[in-house]
């Protein structure tokens, strides 16, 4: 394969807590290729979120190198990281984190506005239809269920046609049925559009449906496993 989407070597993130250094992630090596569907698993505090933040260019690296689309971003400035995130990386969070004052459609339009991209309303509606929310485009987040809100969040991430999606426990706040439905959307965009998806989950059933699982513990990868199911 010509170049990795993400390549990390000896990736380390250290926080200072009092007089103590805490290694949120500690020397992780990682290669993610286009079309990968990866589940990050591991107990709470194992470093899943930190790793996602770093490879999503939201957080800085303490040491090691990180290449995104072949470009070393481990020493990049905030301004360059913003430019990289815009139009390349889609984020989905456990808490949905929609803007409460904006409708579903407006929430989806927001990243396009920041990326200075003009799109027809039809384009936005199509994306909402793709996640099964064609009938809720003018609803505010508070008028929607958790599953619906997460669908809006996925649509928002997809609006900029990203190169990869980062989802931090996207089903953590959902019931079993909604969880599977949301997961199916990820599987669909991965399978049909070849979109790279990296998600963190506590749910082994969902994890087993990805192409690769990376287990983390105490900031280190402890096990990599190719999932047979996918």
């Amino acid at each position, binding site marked *: 394969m010509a170049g990795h989407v993400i390549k990390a070597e000896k990736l380390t993130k250290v926080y200072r807590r009092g007089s103590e250094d805490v290694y949120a992630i500690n020397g992780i090596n990682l290669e993610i290729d286009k079309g990968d569907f990866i589940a990050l698993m591991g107990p709470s505090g194992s470093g899943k979120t930190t790793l996602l933040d770093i490879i999503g260019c939201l957080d800085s690296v303490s040491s090691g190198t990180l290449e995104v689309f072949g470009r070393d971003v481990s020493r990049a400035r905030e301004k360059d990281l*913003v430019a990289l995130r815009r139009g390349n990386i*889609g*984020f989905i969070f456990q808490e949905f*984190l929609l803007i409460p004052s*904006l409708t579903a459609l407006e929430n989806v339009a*927001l*990243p396009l*506005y*920041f990326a200075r991209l003009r799109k027809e309303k039809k384009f936005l509606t199509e994306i909402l239809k793709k996640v099964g929310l064609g009938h809720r485009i003018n609803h505010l987040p508070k008028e929607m269920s958790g599953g619906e809100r997460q669908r809006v969040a996925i649509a928002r*991430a997809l609006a900029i046609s990203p190169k990869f999606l980062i989802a931090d426990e996207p089903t953590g706040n959902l019931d079993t049925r909604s969880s599977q439905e949301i997961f199916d959307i990820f599987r669909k965009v991965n399978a049909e559009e070849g979109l790279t998806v990296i998600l963190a989950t506590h749910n082994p059933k969902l994890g087993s449906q990805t192409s690769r699982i990376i287990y983390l513990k105490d900031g280190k990868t402890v096990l990599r496993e190719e999932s047979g199911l996918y």
Partner: protein
Amino acid sequence: MNTFAIALKNLARKKVRTLLTISGVAIAIAVLVSLWGFDAGYQKSLESDIDKMGYQLLVTAKGCPYEAATLMLKGGGGLLYMPEGVYDKIVKDPRIDRITPQLVATAYDPQKESSDSGIALYMGIHESYLALKPWSKFKFGGWFSGEDADEVIIGYEAAEFEQRAVGDKVFIPGKDKVLTVVGIFERTGTQDDGIIFMPLKTAQRIFDLPGKLTGIGIKLKDMRELSKFEEDLYYEPGIQIISMAQVRGTILNLVSSAKAMTNSVAMIAIIVAVIGVVNTILMSVFERTSEIGVMKAIGASRADIFRIIWTETTLICVFGGIIGNILAILGGNMVEYALKQVLPYTPKGHLVIITPEVLVLSSVGAIVMGLIAGVYPAFRAASLKPVEAIRKGE
């Protein structure tokens, strides 16, 4: 989707809080506009009052210059008396273009209690009075039949208030004297409108002030001779000369101290309003920490966030400015009424004149206020680190 829409929707989320903050700005702007309006209006009215007095100099008996200045504008002379001889002496001066003697007297009228604390103002005048006030025209009737006639000419408002017509009888309270109305002046827009005029000699007789005057109005042929003329009269005993320029300065001086106080009140109102806006927006930034983090995660730059928050503060101040301007226009009469109660002298005409320039200036002021108030909250929001912001909100 644009910055305005996002900012507006954010403000609409906490309607009560936003409205309260806007009210704070509106009140501050209303105070400011009223003050500026007063500044312009008072000066203009005062100047027009002084212009309409017709004379540049007034000779009065020696007394407190402030009291004299105020009383003079109210009726043409301080209620201190000087002998008629002064007039006879000055009248021959070749530098004088026009000159008129006057005697002001007051009488308490219990039937007039509703207006001006029941005091009726009378002025004894000489025929030369009309020469100094060419705009004083008769609406009805004409001049007195003689120098000692028991007749009056009434100012427009006094006539209207007392429902008098030519031929009616006027009773002078406390003097048991009845005079006949021979003329009614047209409206002049000055204090003269409220005065009852009678021949100088009649006034001296009725009010028991033989050979007395309260003032002598003088117009010089050449204004440049003013200071020399004043100097010549300086050594004349028992009198003082007040020039209209001096009166204007004296009154503006009195008013300026009141103005300084109200100006500081306006400044305080604005500072409080700005602090209110900063507080509201800061609070809203803290509440939206995770939202701001998400916006950054999905591609918002520091400048984008700064712009959104800045727009929110500016919108609050712009709305406040608009409402404040409307309040000032609607409340202008109320402010005028209040000012009339506290000011030492209030000219005729509008005290508060709100011009389009004042409105434009205050609107620009409101925008500037918003821009200034927005800097710190916008900077705080723009400086949030996406990861920390997102996690803080969770």
